[in-house]
């Protein structure tokens, strides 16, 4: 990179412009990835953090795709799963979005109904008894309530037994845990204490949280067929949250477009740069530079520009996410920072390589004559 590094130093303005653009694109992609992950987590953490690997849904029609708003499992279905060989645990889980009131304020929450002694509640359920509720950190903050306070959930007064540190939410609302009996009595989705579907008088919960010893597809399919359920992994169950699918689809599409645009922009930059270097490349070829030497030099230049630009953009995004973490839901992990950075560098190099390959076609005699 004898010439490349000196070019970088010499044409500072031009490369500074390229660096700024690559930095801004990286910031956008990385921050969007962190925001997507944050929104995804805010929408699904109540499900993805469950100590279970599968969820069994019971939909009105067996062919319906799983949806939390439409699923109602019965005691028979729960028993069928609990008695299936290879099922380590089968816990009924009620899921219902509702309004909660505290003396100070009101807030939308998601009530998760769990069976007594269930491991589904983070930290176990020693503080969860009939007439009590356990708040997630987000719910406690939203309701300005703590242990010992009384809140009203869908018209039913419940005492706060404990507040968990866990940030758990469902469809962007913080989670509160109640006993399954209380969850049923607050009406789940109807608010009248009973399922309004005539064909499901013994509804106990929304889904069954399953932990399988060996998640054999055959055994799942057999029990699904006999119990009338639809079983998916907890990761797949995210799609059963209506808002998640639409939101995640939009944000992922934006990320993909940004990555494609970044490759095109970097490619365009290096196309212009390579064209403007045609005379210099011709001189180097005439002096005896091999095509391999010229390609290594040019690709090395692109790598330096991309590493600096993507590094700065990633650092900026991480700093921005840290500063704004109280205001917007962002998740900063290797998946939301390193992965976009690697993708940007990879796609940028593809764009640059397509531009730089012109170097191989420069005819030194013709280029020098035209120069």
């Amino acid at each position, binding site marked *: 990179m004898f010439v490349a590094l000196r070019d970088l130093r010499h044409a500072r303005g031009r490369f500074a412009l390229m660096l700024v653009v690559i930095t801004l694109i990286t910031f956008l992609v990385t921050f969007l990835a962190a925001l997507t992950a944050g929104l995804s987590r805010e929408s699904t953490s109540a499900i993805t953090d469950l100590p279970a690997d599968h969820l069994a849904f019971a939909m009105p029609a067996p062919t319906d795709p799983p949806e939390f708003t439409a699923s109602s499992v019965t005691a028979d279905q729960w028993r069928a799963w609990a008695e299936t060989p290879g099922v380590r645990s089968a816990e009924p889980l009620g899921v219902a979005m509702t309004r909660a009131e505290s003396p100070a304020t009101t807030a939308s929450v998601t009530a998760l109904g769990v069976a007594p002694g269930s491991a589904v509640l983070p930290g176990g359920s020693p503080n969860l008894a009939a007439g009590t509720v356990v708040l997630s950190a987000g719910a406690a903050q939203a309701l300005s309530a703590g242990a010992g306070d009384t809140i009203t959930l869908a018209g039913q007064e419940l005492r706060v037994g404990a507040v968990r540190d866990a940030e758990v939410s469902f469809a962007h609302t913080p989670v509160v845990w109640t006993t399954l009996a209380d969850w049923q009595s607050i009406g789940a989705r109807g608010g009248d204490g009973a399922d309004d579907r005539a064909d499901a008088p013994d509804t106990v919960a929304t889904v069954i949280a399953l932990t399988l010893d060996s998640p054999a597809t055959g055994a799942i399919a057999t029990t699904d067929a006999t119990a009338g359920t639809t079983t998916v992994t907890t990761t797949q169950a995210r799609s059963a949250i209506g808002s998640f699918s639409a939101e995640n689809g939009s944000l992922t599409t934006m990320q993909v477009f940004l990555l494609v645009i970044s490759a095109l922009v970097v490619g365009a930059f290096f196309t212009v740069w390579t064209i403007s270097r045609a005379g*210099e490349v011709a001189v180097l070829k*005439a002096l005896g530079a091999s095509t391999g030497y010229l390609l290594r030099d040019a690709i090395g230049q692109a790598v330096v520009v991309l590493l600096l630009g993507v590094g700065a953009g990633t650092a900026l995004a991480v700093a921005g996410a840290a500063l704004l973490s109280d205001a917007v839901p962002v998740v900063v992990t290797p998946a939301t920072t390193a992965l976009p950075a690697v993708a940007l560098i990879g796609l940028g190099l593809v764009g640059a390589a397509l531009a730089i390959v012109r170097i191989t076609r420069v005819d030194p*005699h013709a280029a020098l004559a035209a*120069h």
Partner: protein
Amino acid sequence: MDLHLDRITLVYPDGDSTLTAVDDFSLTIPSGTTTALLGPSGSGKSSLLAVAGGLTRPTSGVVRIGGDVVFAPGGGLAAATRTRLDQIGIVFQAPQLLASLTALEQLELHAHLRGRRPATVRAQAMALLAEVGLADQAHKRPAQLSGGQRQRVAIARALVGSPRVLLVDEPTSALDHARGTQIIELITRLAHELDAATLVVSHDSSTLGSVDGTVRMLDGRRELLLPVHAD
């Protein structure tokens, strides 16, 4: 080693027909001597120089350095590039210096192209810059040098690899008569010191008093040879 251009013909496509830029041209330049190639614009001088430097493959004929055929019709580009790097120094009509490199780095680049550390030729590069009178300009970039200084850096760059053959294309076209004469004298002296067979293309015979021989070219053909003589 001597430079031999053996019956070089170069034909370009020209629309539906062809254009013969060089027509059955032969020339031998002994090592350590400088031969000037004179002729009007369009006579084929630069085309012949491009063939001699392996920048263009001849349609027929061969270029030899010593006894080795280095450029021939159908020859490989990679081999031609390597030959140019190892055995040939070229000074272009315009200095064609790289804008981002200092005068010293223009010379050190040759070592880097050969896969060696630039520092390995630094002493030789500084000596050559001193030879062309630019030792105190070694760390300046082309934009900071005058036209004559840039041309002298280009000459030093062409010589840094101790080439067996030096090819110089119209080195005085942008210089006044006095500076042009100085440049030709410098090339002739250095070629003699380095024992390089040197071909200088020019359209101005008034600056060529120091060369060892002159060849005229017209319409791609050799017109007249003034015998090469030693100093």
